[in-house]
């Protein structure tokens, strides 16, 4: 049986508490939310940097390969150009496949995605709780919610370790292996593949933390339903890029 502490705990204590006592830790975070989101943000970005440093070269090679395929597919559109113009296009496209460019773009995408994701996740839970009759501050909930991302920090570190050890990128994240055709480009345009790729042990851990956060905010009733709604909306939002890619795809 967890108990909430009226005394503000240290960040290290909170980090450890997220693992084995998530509910009381979230209660602590809700009670003392000020600047608490900084720690998860630093950890997430740090893990991202580590992962990108390890995998930048591989990502660049993958990007170059995809650009070669893309260049081949738009060859018909380039036929009206001179050879010099086509070479210029080829060089411009290759500029975006250097390791630094790829890593920088991926870092920017993840950084922006982190804050947007936190805002959306907090909104889902916030409105769920407000509709359920609970009065809670959005800022406090946001600070607490950012701590539910810590499983993804672990995932990035595990990914970095895997890349460093194996020398290859992960091909099929989560459960997407079971829907994979082996063609990474067509898999990336398959919404089901994308959705299943989100589901792994870290995601389940994240959902458990969301459940704990909701229970910490409202100890009685409705936590399972709101967690389920959150999970579905979360997966649906993750599907949007894949759906857009599939619709805009020329392949």
């Amino acid at each position, binding site marked *: 049986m967890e108990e909430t502490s009226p005394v503000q705990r240290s960040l290290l204590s909170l980090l*450890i508490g997220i*693992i*084995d006592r998530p509910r009381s830790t979230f209660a602590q975070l809700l009670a003392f939310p000020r600047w608490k989101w900084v720690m998860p943000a630093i950890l997430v970005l740090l893990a991202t940097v580590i992962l990108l440093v390890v995998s930048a070269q591989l990502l660049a090679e993958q990007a*170059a*390969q995809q650009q*070669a*395929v893309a*260049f*081949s597919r738009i*060859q*018909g559109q380039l*036929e009206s150009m001179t050879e010099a113009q086509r070479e210029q296009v080829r060089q411009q496209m290759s500029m975006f496949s250097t390791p630094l460019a790829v890593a920088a773009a991926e870092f920017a995408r993840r950084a922006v995605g982190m804050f947007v994701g936190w805002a959306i996740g907090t909104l889902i839970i916030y409105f769920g709780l407000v509709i359920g009759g609970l009065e809670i501050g959005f800022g406090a909930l946001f600070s607490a919610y950012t701590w539910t991302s810590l*499983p993804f920090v*672990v*995932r990035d570190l*595990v*990914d970095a*370790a*895997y890349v460093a050890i*194996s020398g*290859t990128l*992960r*091909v*099929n*994240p989560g459960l*997407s*292996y079971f829907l*994979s*055709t*082996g*063609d*990474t480009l067509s898999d990336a345009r398959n919404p089901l593949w994308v959705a299943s790729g989100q589901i*792994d*042990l*870290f995601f389940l*851990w994240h959902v458990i933390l969301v459940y704990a956060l909701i229970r910490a905010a409202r100890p009685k009733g409705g936590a399972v339903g709101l967690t389920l709604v959150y999970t579905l909306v979360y997966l649906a939002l993750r599907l949007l890029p894949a759906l857009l890619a599939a619709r805009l795809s020329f392949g």
Partner: protein
Amino acid sequence: MRRTAIILVILAVVIGGSLVLYRYTSQAKEPPAPDYETITAEKGNLISTVSATGSIEPEDEVALLFRGASRVAEVLVKEGDQVAVDQVLARLDTTDISLAMAQAETNLAISQAQLEKLKTPSADVDITAAQAAVTSAEAAADSARSALASAQASYNDLVNGPSADELQAAQATLERARIVRDQAQSAYDQVANQPNVGMLPQSAQLQQATVDYETAAANYRITTAKPKASQLAAARAQIAQAEASVAQSEASLANAQSSLDRLQRGPAEQDLAISEAQVRQSELAIAQSRLNESNSELVSPISGVATSVNIGIGELPPAGQPAVVITDLSRFHLDILVDEIDIAKLSEGQPVSITLDALPDAVIGGHIDRISPTPVSSTGITSYKVTVVVDETNAALRSGLSATASITTDELRDIVLLPNRAIQIDRSSGRALVEKIVNGVPTTTEVQLGSRNEQYSQILSGVEAGDELAIRSGGGLDQLRSTMFGGG
């Protein structure tokens, strides 16, 4: 301590499980087989040929049709018969045509006779007779006019009654008769007392005088009486009859005068023109009948073999289908379509090697006889018809045999070769493209083509020996092959 163990267990489960899952999911799945075939560009020799397929056709073949619509009376050939030039092959029933010819000839004779008659000058005796007829008609007209005047006068007399002189004469006659009777009466009165008075002449004189007086009185009454309606009607009828006689006689006179004038003047120009046109019409009818008669015969314009006979005795000639087909099987040719890309390499007289599907062991010689100056476009592909004349051969050639004509245009050694199916021609720009595999990815690359035959093309630049290329199955590249090498 216990809490630390719990935390470590949780992290170990999550991290360890994930690593195991990573290992499994990253290695087990094989990528799908590529949807293309990989080939390697090699060096070799190339005999450039232009090949196309067609079918063996006889050099000359005519399909003959009847132009008439009668039933077939005679069929003089059967399929397979040798036929000479101008040989009659079949005839139609010409009964109708013969009748029409006889009718036309009769009409011609009639119209010619009428024309001749118009052109012959009038004889003097005819003119004299006509003049006599005019004189006679004039006399008859005068007589009729007199009769009319007489009838008119009678009617007027009847209407107007007796004149004053006639009335005075009648009164005088009546008065004289009364005086004579009175005198006779006085003489009788003097002897009236005698017993034999009846025997005396006074009695007879009185009786005579009385009768004369009564007669004179009756005449006077008749003379002064008004005419009866029946008398007037009869008089009018006489006038009408006389007028009709006058009109008839004047018409006869005009007729006679007209005939006389015509005889004296000769035929009118319009009459001559009409008559001449009738003659020409009759001549045309005869010409038409003769044409119909000639069309009733089917005559072969060439020598050859009757390869199709589609008529039978008593049948009507088939509509829209040749009655007899004559084919010259002594010479054959082959029409092929050659793509515009290759047409410049060909010239008339160039030798051609011909192989037949039906006779795989036979290679028959031939030469290009004609190259059409105008293209044939089909589904965006421009080709030219090339006629290849087949040389004399002992091979059992038949019309319609499928044949492939192969024309050698060049021979090259130790050059970079690619299968034609690996090359795509963009007809809008004329560029040749291949899919060269670069870093494992098929990449569209432009190549410069040299010579080629139906299987391989010489690559001048864009691909080197040893380069790998992708050939995708289906659609585009197969279509390329047919568009590059035309015909078949």
